[in-house]
């Protein structure tokens, strides 16, 4: 049965016959698979859900026809925040003019936020350093629209255009982050550190630093809180819990603050990292 006994042509012919047979088999399988997946299954399934055959086959190919036109909920509602990261807004924020923002900040903001972004009244005026331009823009935009209620800021922002906001965001996002020593704050309890770094799965509480660490990769508008004043963080958590601040997307912070006890809120988070 050695190949040597046969003339070379017959081996070549046998090989060709093998290739032809295999090709035919593979094509037959491909055709049957296609018929089953694109015709038989969708048509049969479509009959039971009231789709005609043509629509069922189109849907099987994924030619953009949703399964059923759902009754859209028509209830009109004001958004919690009208800041949306569509491409226009993203580009505006990216192209903010830091120099123009600096001049504006000197005239308009420095009285409370100080030229270096570090306020004199940590409980009600936040540090505006170490925040991304998107974080600053979002809060300015929401306060200007009244979605985050702050009378003092509203008065100032009413005078400003959207371009002013992006310029300010560009300026403040470039200020150096506040340098501070965690050990100076004796309110930090072990429990707060656990909540800040690990969260609490039994209450569906993510770790604070899952979003608020500068390298967390959380939501686009999230403020980095590693340099924020503890007193300010406490007042904002209290405001979220009470529902007086509600410009967070889909109630994320309201739910989190609502689950924290007053004692936990008082034991603020200030990440023990540079």
């Amino acid at each position, binding site marked *: *049965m*050695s*190949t040597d006994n*046969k003339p*070379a042509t017959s*081996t*070549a012919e*046998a*090989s060709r016959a*093998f*290739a032809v047979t*295999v*090709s035919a088999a*593979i094509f037959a*399988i*491909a055709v049957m*698979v*296609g018929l*089953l*997946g*694109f015709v038989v*299954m*969708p048509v049969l*399934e479509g009959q039971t859900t009231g789709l005609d055959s043509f629509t069922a*086959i189109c*849907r*099987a*190919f*994924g*030619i*953009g026809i949703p399964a059923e036109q759902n009754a859209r909920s028509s209830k009109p509602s004001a958004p919690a925040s009208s800041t949306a*990261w569509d*491409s226009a807004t*993203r580009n505006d924020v990216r192209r903010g003019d830091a120099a123009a923002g600096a001049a504006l900040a000197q005239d308009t903001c420095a009285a409370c936020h100080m030229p270096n972004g570090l306020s004199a009244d940590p409980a009600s005026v936040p540090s505006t350093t170490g925040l991304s331009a998107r974080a600053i823009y979002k809060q300015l935009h929401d306060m200007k629209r009244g979605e985050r209620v702050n009378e003092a800021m509203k008065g100032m922002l009413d005078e400003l255009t959207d371009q002013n906001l992006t310029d300010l965001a560009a300026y403040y996002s470039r200020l150096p982050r506040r340098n501070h020593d965690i050990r100076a704050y004796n309110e930090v309890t072990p429990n707060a550190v656990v909540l800040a770094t*690990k969260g609490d*799965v*039994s209450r569906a509480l993510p770790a604070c630093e899952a979003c608020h660490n*500068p*390298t*967390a*990769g*959380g*939501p*686009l508008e999230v403020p980095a809180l590693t340099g924020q004043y503890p007193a300010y963080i406490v007042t904002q958590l209290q405001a979220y819990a009470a529902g007086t601040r509600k410009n967070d997307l889909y109630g994320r912070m309201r739910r989190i603050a609502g689950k924290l006890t007053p004692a936990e809120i008082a034991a603020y988070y200030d990440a023990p990292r540079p």
Partner: protein
Amino acid sequence: MGYVLTTFFIMGFGYFVAESALRQPLPAPRLAWLGFILGIVGTVMVVATVLTGHASVMFTFYPPLTASPIFYLGLVLVVVGSWIWCVLMLVAMMRWKRANPGQPVPLAMYATAANAVLWLWTTIGVAVELLFVVIPAAFGWTQTVDVGLTRTLFSWTLHAIVYFWLIPAYIAFYTIAPQAAGGRLFSDLMARASFILFLLCGLPVGLHHLFMDPEHSTGFKSIQMILTVLVAVPTLLTVFTVTASMETAGRLRGGKGLFGWIGALPWERPMVLATGLSFFMLWFGGFGGLINMSYGMNAMVHNTSWVSAHFHMIFGGSVVIMYFAIAYHIWPSLAGRAAPSVALQRIQLWLWAVGMMVMSMPWHWLGLNGQVRRVAQFDYADPSMSWWTPWMAVSLAGGFVLVVSAALFIWNLVSFHVERSAGVYPAPVKYATALHPDQPVPAALNGFALWNVFVLILMAAAYSYPIAQFFILNPPQAVVHRVDR
């Protein structure tokens, strides 16, 4: 881990096979070293970014989460290094064919070349994803990512990559284990056909990882499901052919009756023992896989510990244990010494199999009951999860056994070089002879030209519209979420 261990092992084993099975020197060994260095540099880049917290995106990337570009560039280097390997494997095979016209390529080399071809096809998906979508986003050149497109491109790679990892184990099943057991390969043709079926059916099935995704239609999901059913066939063929090969060994050693040959096998040899343990774990891994691929049934287990159990069984278990056995098998001829302690090798293999079973078996049950994977902590106080605790402890114990086994493996290889007792220069590695060595091999099963045409056709049928739809329908994109700043 999944990428790095496998890629380096497969490259090394491929070079070994190319020299030992073809009995000719490797073409362009300097290029091979270049591939190796690229792989090392890439690995260092990846590990450094992950350990410094600049790449918390896991190895499936999950765009629009976006890590430091260094992470992705490191992966690209590893892949480019492996492409060099692929080219060298194919060149080695062609040189041999030119020097031996009309002769069938030795099975071990044919299968290695099949794996190289498979890997070249496989990496196209992830390479396109990285080069055209993810890396531009990581450098900040683009602001948004088409998530459906990236998931689809990754799925192209996602399933065939496991066959790339698997094939070396199958090479050992077919070409090393029967010889090590003292028998013959039952059928050389069936072995070739199985490797070709892996090449054909392993590629156009990646959408079965996206059964639960909203961006694909029922039609393409179901045809890839059917093709996935077909990919079970080469494994089922292998089970028979390798069992029959082992049976020839058992019978040649005097085994009688329906099952007597099993006891007659030389189980004291690590390669034989590993093959047995590997087949045992393959049953469980294959069982999990059959559930995963069953279209609607995937909903029970998608993204749960069941999936982790499945690939730990089939990859961590049946495949990696064969990597160990292959290392033990080829190390003597690399080191020029006999193994100092075969008993320690057997213990290591047993520990690995037992550890993997103990670790992975509970995951099946937990996954079926909703334990999701890739989670750092569970609320064990919740009554629906409190009963998981003891099972997690069992799993953890299995994990410790695996750590011990891995350490013992390293010691077993080191001991070749440190212990004076190992001295006898062993015979070079042999490959199994077929039961009927003179059976003619059709030209189609001695090359890849025909099969590449079929892969192209099947991939076009399975993936052309699923990829094109993102350009036709132009779905809204997601904004890049940087995790490193």
